[in-house]
C-alpha cells in the first residue's frame, strides 16, 4: 500500500484532523494507581486538594486554624475546628488566602504574643531557588492576620545571599528564630508593632558550621538552648542570650547523610535525613540523648527501607508519639508513627502510605479533644491529608 517512494491516494484531511483533534485534549492518558490512602490503618478524616501551582509545602495548625502554605497560591487559611466558619478536621472550610510577593510560600508560624495577647502576626517563609550547601534565596514576610478574613502582607525581612527555611519562636521573649540555609540562623526581635522592614530588628546571626559548612534546615528551642539541624554539618546546640547566638556543642556529627528536620522532647532530640549524600540515602532518623548541659549524643538510628528522605519530624504534645514524614521512594512513602515509651529507642507503631513522591511535611494538632496529624502531599497530586491519630496517643 505504501512505500518510501510510492504515491498513494490519501485524504489531505488525515493529518489535519488527527493533529487538531488530538492536540485539543488537555488530559493525560496515564492513569494513576488506586489511592493508597484507602488502605490507611488510621482514619483519614479529610483530604483537601490545593491548587497544583507547585503544591503544598507546610502547615501551621493552632487553635483550630490551619495556615497551609501553597507556594505561588500563597497561604490559605482553613477553619479546621475553630468553629467560627463551621470547619472541622473532617470538613476544613477555606476562610481566606494571601499571596506573598514573589510567591513560593513555604512555611509559617502564627505568633501568639503573651505580652500583648495579640494573635496579629503570621510569619511566612519564602523558599526561592538554591543549591544545597551553597546558595539559597527567599525572604520572611509578615502577614497581619488580626482579621482572618482579610490577611495582608505588612512587612518583610531580607538577607542578601541567603534564603530562609523553617522557624521557631520564643514567644515569651518575642523572638523569631529562622533557619537561613547557608546564612545559618537568624534571631529577630518581633515585639510590639512591626515595621515594614525587619532589618533593624535583627538581633544576631550565626553560621554554626562556619562559612564553608553551613546549610541550616531548621531550629528548635528546648530547655533554654536553640538547636539547629544543618544539612551539611549535622546537629548543633546553640546558646541564646535573648537572641544573641553562639555555638555551644554538637556539629560535624552526621557525616554520612544530609540532615533535615528536628524535634526535641523528653530530653531527647530526633533529626531526619535528606536525599542522597554520595550514594547513602536519607532514610535514617537519628536519636540523640541530651546531656545535662544540653549537648547531644547519638544513641540510636531508625532506618526506614524504601525511602530517601525523612522530611519532617515531630513529637506529640504528650511526648509519647513520634511522627515523621517520608519522601523519595516508591511504595513506602508517607507518614510513619513510633511510640516513645522508651524515648531513646522509638518503636514502630504504624505507617500511612501516600502516593509517591510522598508526604513533604507533617504536624500534630489537638482539636476538640482529639489528636490529628496534618500532612502535605507534594508536589504531585498536591493535597492536605488529615489523619485521626487519637488511637496512637490517647
Amino acid at each position, binding site marked *: 500500500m*505504501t*512505500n*518510501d517512494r*510510492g*504515491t*498513494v*491516494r*490519501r*485524504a*489531505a*484531511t*488525515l*493529518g*489535519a*484532523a*488527527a*493533529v487538531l*483533534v*488530538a*492536540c*485539543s*485534549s*488537555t*488530559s*493525560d*492518558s*496515564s492513569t494513576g494507581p488506586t489511592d493508597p490512602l484507602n488502605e490507611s490503618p488510621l482514619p483519614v478524616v479529610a483530604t483537601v486538594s490545593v*491548587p*497544583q501551582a*507547585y*503544591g503544598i*509545602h507546610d502547615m501551621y495548625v493552632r487553635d483550630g486554624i490551619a495556615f497551609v502554605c501553597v507556594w505561588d497560591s500563597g497561604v490559605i487559611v482553613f477553619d479546621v475546628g475553630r468553629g467560627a466558619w463551621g470547619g472541622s478536621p473532617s470538613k476544613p472550610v477555606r476562610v481566606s488566602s494571601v499571596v506573598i510577593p514573589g*510567591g513560593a510560600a513555604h512555611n509559617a508560624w502564627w505568633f501568639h504574643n503573651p505580652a500583648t495577647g495579640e494573635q496579629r502576626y503570621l510569619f511566612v517563609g519564602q*523558599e*526561592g*531557588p*538554591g*543549591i*544545597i*550547601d*551553597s546558595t539559597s*534565596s527567599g525572604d520572611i514576610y509578615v502577614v497581619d492576620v488580626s482579621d482572618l478574613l482579610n490577611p495582608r502582607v505588612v512587612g518583610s525581612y531580607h538577607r542578601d545571599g541567603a534564603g530562609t527555611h523553617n522557624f521557631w519562636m520564643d514567644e515569651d521573649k518575642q523572638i523569631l528564630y529562622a533557619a537561613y540555609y547557608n546564612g545559618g540562623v537568624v534571631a529577630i526581635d518581633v515585639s510590639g508593632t512591626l515595621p515594614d522592614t525587619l532589618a533593624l530588628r535583627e538581633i544576631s546571626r550565626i553560621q554554626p558550621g562556619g562559612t564553608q559548612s553551613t*546549610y541550616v534546615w531548621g531550629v528548635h528551642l528546648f530547655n533554654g538552648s536553640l538547636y539547629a539541624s544543618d*544539612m551539611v554539618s549535622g546537629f548543633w546546640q546553640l546558646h541564646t542570650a535573648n537572641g544573641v547566638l553562639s555555638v555551644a556543642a554538637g556539629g560535624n556529627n552526621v557525616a554520612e547523610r544530609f540532615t533535615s528536620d528536628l524535634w526535641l522532647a523528653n530530653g531527647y532530640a530526633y533529626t531526619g535525613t535528606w*536525599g*542522597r*549524600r*554520595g*550514594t547513602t*540515602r536519607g532514610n535514617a532518623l537519628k536519636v540523640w540523648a541530651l546531656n545535662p548541659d544540653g549537648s547531644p549524643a547519638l544513641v540510636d538510628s531508625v532506618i526506614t527501607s*524504601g*525511602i*530517601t528522605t525523612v522530611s519532617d519530624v515531630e513529637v506529640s504534645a504528650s511526648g509519647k508519639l513520634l511522627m515523621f514524614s517520608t*519522601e*523519595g*521512594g*516508591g511504595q513506602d512513602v508517607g507518614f510513619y508513627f513510633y511510640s516513645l515509651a522508651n524515648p531513646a529507642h522509638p518503636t514502630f507503631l504504624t505507617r500511612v502510605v501516600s502516593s509517591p*513522591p510522598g508526604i513533604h511535611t507533617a504536624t500534630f494538632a489537638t482539636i476538640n479533644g482529639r489528636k490529628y496529624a496534618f500532612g502535605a502531599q*507534594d*508536589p504531585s497530586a498536591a493535597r492536605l491529608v488529615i489523619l485521626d491519630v487519637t488511637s496512637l496517643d490517647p
Partner: protein
Amino acid sequence: MNGPAALVLALAAWLPARAAAQVATLHWGAQAIPALTATAVVPGGETLTELRVVQPFLMLRADAFRHRLTGLATGNFEKWTMPNGELVPGAWGEGFADRRHPHTVFHELMLVVPADRFFLAAGKGFVPFGSDDPMSRPVLRYPVNHHWAQILERAVAIGGARDGPLMLEGSLFNGDEPVSPDSWPAIDRFGDSWSVRLTLSPPTTPLELQVSYAFVHSPENRAGAGPDDIKWSASARWERSPVYGLLEWARTSVSSGDLVYHSVLAEASVAMGGHRPYGRFEVTERPEDDRLADPFRTVWPPLDNSILGVTRWTVVTAGDAIELKPLGPVRLAPVAELSYAWIAKVGGGAFDPAAFYGREHGLVVTLGVRVTAGMRMTRMGRYGSTATMDEPGMHHHDE
C-alpha cells in the same frame, strides 16, 4: 478526551470522506536500533550492561494539494522498548538522570503550509529553537545538552518568513515538558512560552547559521509554578555529501539568572564507501537534582526549586556506522560507538561526582544495529524546509 482516542476519532472521520479527498502522497519511514550499552559511569560506580531497543519510531509524511499542505506524524515507541530509559551517562531531564527518558508516543503531529516566502505550521512538535533533534543526527548517543539545545513535544504554532538566504521563524507554545510517554501538552498553557530563530543559509555554500532565543515558562512544573528558562542557541551547520558538521553553543538561564548552564558541542561525520565514521566533542553543564530510591530517577518536579549542584560533563565520542546491502525494504547499519566522559563539579553545592559515581571519568561502549525502512529521516525541527531530508552524512547505496 485523551490523545490516542482523539486520533482514532480523527481517523474514523477521515475514512468515509477519503473518496472525496484530494490527491496526496504519503511517505513513511521506520527505525529501531537494538543497542547494547556498557558503562561504569553510573550511580554507585558498578558496571552496567543493558540491551535496549532505542529510537524506535514510525514516521509518516503526507503531502497534499500539490505540496501546499504537509502533514508530519511520528510515533515513538520508547514507552515500550525502554520504559525506564536508555543508559546514557550525563543524560538528564523529565525525571531521569544518567538515563535518557523515553519520548512521548505521539512524538510529532504537525501540519505545515509551505510557500515560497513563508510557511505556517501547527500541531504537536518541535519549537523553532536550536539545532536539529539528536535522533536525526549521526551520533547514536544523545548529547547531554538535549534539554538546552532543543525544545520539543509541545503544542506549537509557528510562522516563518524567508528573504533570500534569511529565514525568520517565530512560535508560541506551551512551556511544560511531557510528564510521561503518554503525556500531551497542557493546552491551557499554550502561548505562555515563545521563541524566535533566525537562520542564514548562504546560497552557494552548504553552510547554515542560526541563532535562536526562547522564553520557556515553568518547563519542569506542569502547573506553571516553576521557574522560567531563558534560552539562547547559536550554531553553524555544514552538510554537503559526504561531509556533515555541526558546531553549537547553548545557554540557559533559570529563574532570572539564579542558575545558568552552558553547552558547547561539535560533531562531524563523513561517508566513506559503506562506512560513516563520526565523532563528537561536548562540554555541557547540567543540574543535579535530588534522586529517588531508584538512583536514575529524580524528584520531579524538583522540590522547593532547589538542586544539589551543577556538574560539567565533557564527553568525547567516536563511532562508525556501516551501511550493509539492504535486505529488501530493510536497511541495516551496524554501529560501534565509544564515549569517554569526564565529570566535574561546578561551583558550590552538595553533589560530589566522585562520591556519587565512585569515579570522575569513565568509558561508555555501545554496539548496535540501526534498522531502517522507508523514507530517510527528515531534519527534525525544521518545518520551514519541508523537503524530505536525508540523515546527515549518510551515503545511500539503495538509491
